């Protein structure tokens, strides 16, 4: 039987950090391959939850599904998390059946669900979504859903690689300064997750984030993940660019909740523009945004990638000047032509039309989106007339190959 075994190890002190580790062994029938060590390093003042293996199970579930291995956990998992991960597994198998496979879970100790501790921890990288979520919860602007945020967490080892210490220090100092204005402390967390879990980051970043937040569950009962989605853009997943599969999303994030630690996917009721407008009440938040993960300097925004451009446009839609944290590398209308847009960018044009924005980038974006829509329409029509997998499509392909003379 192909299996992946998880052996949580005792916490140990490393400099100013406390390391929690887990040995991952791959077994093929009787043969055991050499194991990796997945670790998380928390600030020394945090209390680790020693017997708990939930963090590690969440961290590796996608990798086990990809490798088609039974996941065997030599530790304690709550009944709630096991039930939720069963559904999480099934959703991903349906979304990407070529990549992820239904696997079994075997767990040494199943724990009954306990009461949740008060207080929440929020993932914070300096990006718009995390900044907005911390702001609205710290100010109690989410009504009955508002949480008491005990601290934010910035993770070293995700978008900023472990060996880029300087980039992380710059981002962390800026983030800590931003949150200080709300009276919320920021804690660092280091992990070698991306070196051990070699699964597509776009699929796995949701579980990666939640596993990291779970390291703090001995002191808080809720983890907040700022949403990069907008509810109106969820129509229907089969029509989205990649079958709706994206690591962190409002449909499956809550399925990463355990008996003592639940996950709130937060902020999908606001567009990017609305989030920026809300943050005008918090200048420290909006002036210190770090949204970029594509640039070479991970501590700063590149001002050229899709996410940087989209965020800068959202400022202009609110008739706000673009803050200094975004370098001006080229005029906006030129940047719009260079980035790879998705179909959701049409909301930016709609909002520009509604708000009467008449800047050159609106025309450039309209042109790019029209081209994108026509291509998509042609693809859809071809799929109806020559359905994938049909004989007719095969003939058409053969004809096309003959026509090119190859």
């Amino acid at each position: 039987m192909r299996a992946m075994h998880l052996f949580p190890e005792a916490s140990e002190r490393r400099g100013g950090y406390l390391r929690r580790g887990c040995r991952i062994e791959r077994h093929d029938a009787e043969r055991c391959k050499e194991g990796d060590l997945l670790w998380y390093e928390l600030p020394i003042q945090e209390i680790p939850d020693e017997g708990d293996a939930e963090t590690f199970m969440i961290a590796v579930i996608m990798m086990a599904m990809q490798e088609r291995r039974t996941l065997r956990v030599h530790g304690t998992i709550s009944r709630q998390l096991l039930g939720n991960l069963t559904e999480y597994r099934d959703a991903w198998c349906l979304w990407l059946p070529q990549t992820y496979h239904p696997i079994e879970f075997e767990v040494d100790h199943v724990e009954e669900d306990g009461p949740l501790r008060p207080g929440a921890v929020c993932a914070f990288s300096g990006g718009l979504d995390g900044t907005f979520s911390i702001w609205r919860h710290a100010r109690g602007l989410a009504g009955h859903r508002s949480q008491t945020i005990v601290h934010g967490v910035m993770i070293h080892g995700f978008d900023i690689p472990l060996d880029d210490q300087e980039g992380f220090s710059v981002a962390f100092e800026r983030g800590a300064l931003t949150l200080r204005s709300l009276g919320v402390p920021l804690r660092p967390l280091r992990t070698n997750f991306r070196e051990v879990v070699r699964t597509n980051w776009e699929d796995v970043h949701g579980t990666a984030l939640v596993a990291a937040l779970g390291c703090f569950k001995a002191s808080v009962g809720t983890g907040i993940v700022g949403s990069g989605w907008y509810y109106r853009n969820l129509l229907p997943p089969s029509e989205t660019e990649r079958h709706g599969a994206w690591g962190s999303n409002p449909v499956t994030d809550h399925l990463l909740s355990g008996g003592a630690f639940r996950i709130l996917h937060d902020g999908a009721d606001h567009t990017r523009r609305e989030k920026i407008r809300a943050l005008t009440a918090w200048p420290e938040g909006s002036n210190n945004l770090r949204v970029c993960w594509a640039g070479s300097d991970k501590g700063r925004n590149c001002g050229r990638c899709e996410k940087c451009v989209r965020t800068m446009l959202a400022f202009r839609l609110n008739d706000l000047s673009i803050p200094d944290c975004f370098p001006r590398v080229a005029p906006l209308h030129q940047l719009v032509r260079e980035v790879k847009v998705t179909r959701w960018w049409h909301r930016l044009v709609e909002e520009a039309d509604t708000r009467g924005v008449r800047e050159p980038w609106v025309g450039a974006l309209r042109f790019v989106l029209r081209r994108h829509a026509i291509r998509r329409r042609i693809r859809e029509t071809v799929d109806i007339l020559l359905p994938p997998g049909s004989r007719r499509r095969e003939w058409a392909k053969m004809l096309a190959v003959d026509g090119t003379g190859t």
Partner: protein
Amino acid sequence: MYPEPSLRVGDRVRRSCRIERRTGERVESSELLWFDMIPDHPSPDDNDAESYLLATLLLSMKEGRTLVVHGAVTHELASNLTEYRDIWSSCLAHLYQEVDFEITRVVEGAVARREAICAFSGGVDSTFSLWSHAGRNNGYRSQTVTYGVMVHGLDILLAEERAFARAFARAAGTLRSMGIPLLQVRTNLRDLVPVNWEHLSGPALVASLGCYKGLAGVAIIGAGQTYGSFLVPWGTNALMDPLLTSGWFQVLHDGAARSRSQKLSAIAEWEEGFNSLRVCWEGPTTDRNCGQCEKCLRTLLNLKLEGLRLPDSFPEVDDLSPGIRKLRLTSPMVHAEWSDLFAAANRRRIREPWVRAVRLLLVRRAFRGLGPQMLNTILPPGSVRRRRAKALLTLGRG
């Protein structure tokens, strides 16, 4: 909303709540929302207002009224409904406004019972969910289902008493084969809450099932849409149903990882469940399958695709193509289902006349929306170009 004490009405126990619409101090209307349940089962506390809040949230959003609940609601439900409200108001702002809700007693630290009840209409989704949980086919997610619950007053209206009695008798017989008793709830919810049923169906079902939270802490709702093609916002789906969970009553949206064809294949192993399937809600009688409506035809094609025999509850239809040709796919959700069917038929190289009829149906739909879509691309709504075109048109008409 003012919850009232439970009382005995005939052979049932009635839980009710007075709903007053107020503008300032003036009371504009006062109505009684009720749920009748079978006696001799523990019913929720009279002060428990969760079912009433679930039932009326969309109505208050439609009317733009602050919802003031003079009763007890768990903090978990209040928190979840805040997000639920935000989904509706951000997606359909022209229909639903973002209203506040004020609750006189918010209950912290509530604990739900471990047992589960399953909403059961006799359709493919609920039959599959009940079957898979009773057989513990869902691994660690499997629930101990102690009762099925059928609601009178939702898909079968209160006036259709005979149709409900027939559907209930057949469903009770089906569940008896699994050793699971079937309970019923009657409610006037649809008479009192004039909200689009496609939006209201999820909260209405959970509100009704909540009457039995003294018996169970988990409600299983069979998914009608898969994770691959569900619509937001919609009355019930994998994103929104979990947000109807309270501290006392967890809502489990179940089976969204299985297609309708896969569900039918699974149910085929349960003879009583398979033969009693009731999927039709458009036919002349709501307790039988007409074999002609969109859902009946879709189910018949699912059966053909899986190579399954016809269940006893379906009439024999020789040629499905004429029925398919008459259909119009208005809802995106239904369109996604038919697209999946067509794709599956092509993958399996099926060459029957119905495949051509389905292709025609999909092509017709693809081209129907093309005109307005092209117009919107050339003259985007709200743009100066569109305003000028409108002005020119008006000028041209004199």
